[in-house]
C-alpha cells in the first residue's frame, strides 16, 4: 500500500490557489494602467462604454471588469449620461 504523503498546506487552500490561477492573469483597472484611456472616458465615446455593458445593457460590475472603485464610479456616471442622450440603451431586447 502506498504511503500517504503528508501535505504541508491544507488541501482546501491548495484548491483555492488552483481556482485562482485557473482564471488566467490577475485583473487590473484599464484606466489606472493606461492613462490615455482616462481622457477617452467620456459620455460621447459610446463604443468604449459599450465594452462595460452586458448584452442586455446592464453595467458590468467592477468585480468582473476589474476596474478600481474610483474609475468604476466615473464610468457609471458617463454611462448614465450616455443613456440619457440615447447613445446607449437602458435595456436592450435585441443586441
Amino acid at each position, binding site marked *: 500500500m502506498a504511503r500517504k504523503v503528508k501535505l504541508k498546506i491544507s488541501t482546501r487552500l491548495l484548491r483555492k490557489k488552483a481556482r485562482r490561477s485557473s482564471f488566467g492573469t490577475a485583473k487590473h483597472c484599464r484606466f489606472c494602467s493606461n492613462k490615455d484611456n482616462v481622457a477617452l472616458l467620456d459620455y460621447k465615446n459610446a463604443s468604449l462604454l459599450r465594452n462595460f455593458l452586458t448584452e442586455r445593457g446592464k453595467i458590468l460590475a467592477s468585480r468582473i471588469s476589474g476596474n478600481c472603485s474610483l474609475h468604476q464610479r466615473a464610468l457609471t456616471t458617463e454611462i448614465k*449620461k450616455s443613456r440619457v442622450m440615447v447613445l*446607449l440603451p437602458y435595456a436592450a431586447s435585441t443586441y
Partner: protein
Amino acid sequence: MHRYEVLLLTIPEITADEASSLESHLAKVVSDLKGSVLSFDRWGKYFLAYPVRKNDYGIYFLMRFECDVENCKTILDALKTTCAVKYSELIMRHIIVKLDAHAPLEYQRPESLEETPSRDVDSFLKENKMTGLMASSRGNRQKDESMAESMTQEERL
C-alpha cells in the same frame, strides 16, 4: 473662463434651414452674454439605442462655448429654455456638460450612419460565402424553373 458643451439630439426630419436657424439662435444666446462659440459640429444621422418620440433615428449636434464666470449661469438658463421650450419640437434631448478649461478639445464619437457606407446585399453575401443566395444565381434558378415548366408543357403537347 468656463468652458461648456451642449449635445443636442434632434428629430431626423430636421431641414438644413431649421438646423442653421438653430445654430444661429444658440450662437446668439451665447454671444449676447459675452460668450464665444468654439465649435458647432453636426455629427450626422444615428440609429438610436431606443426609440424617442417614436423616432428610431436622430441627428446629433455638438456646440462648445466659453463664457465668463459671472455670465455662465444666465447663459446656461437661456440655453436650457431654448432647448426645452423654444425648439422643443425639433430637439428631443439635450445635455449641458462643463468641460475642463485646459483639456484638449478633441473627442471620440461613434460613427454615424452617413459615414459608414450602406452595403448592398450581394457584397454581404460574398463576404460571408453565401453566394448561393445571390440575386444572379436566384435569377438563374428562376430561369431553370421556367425552362422546366416549358419542357413539361411541350411534353404535354
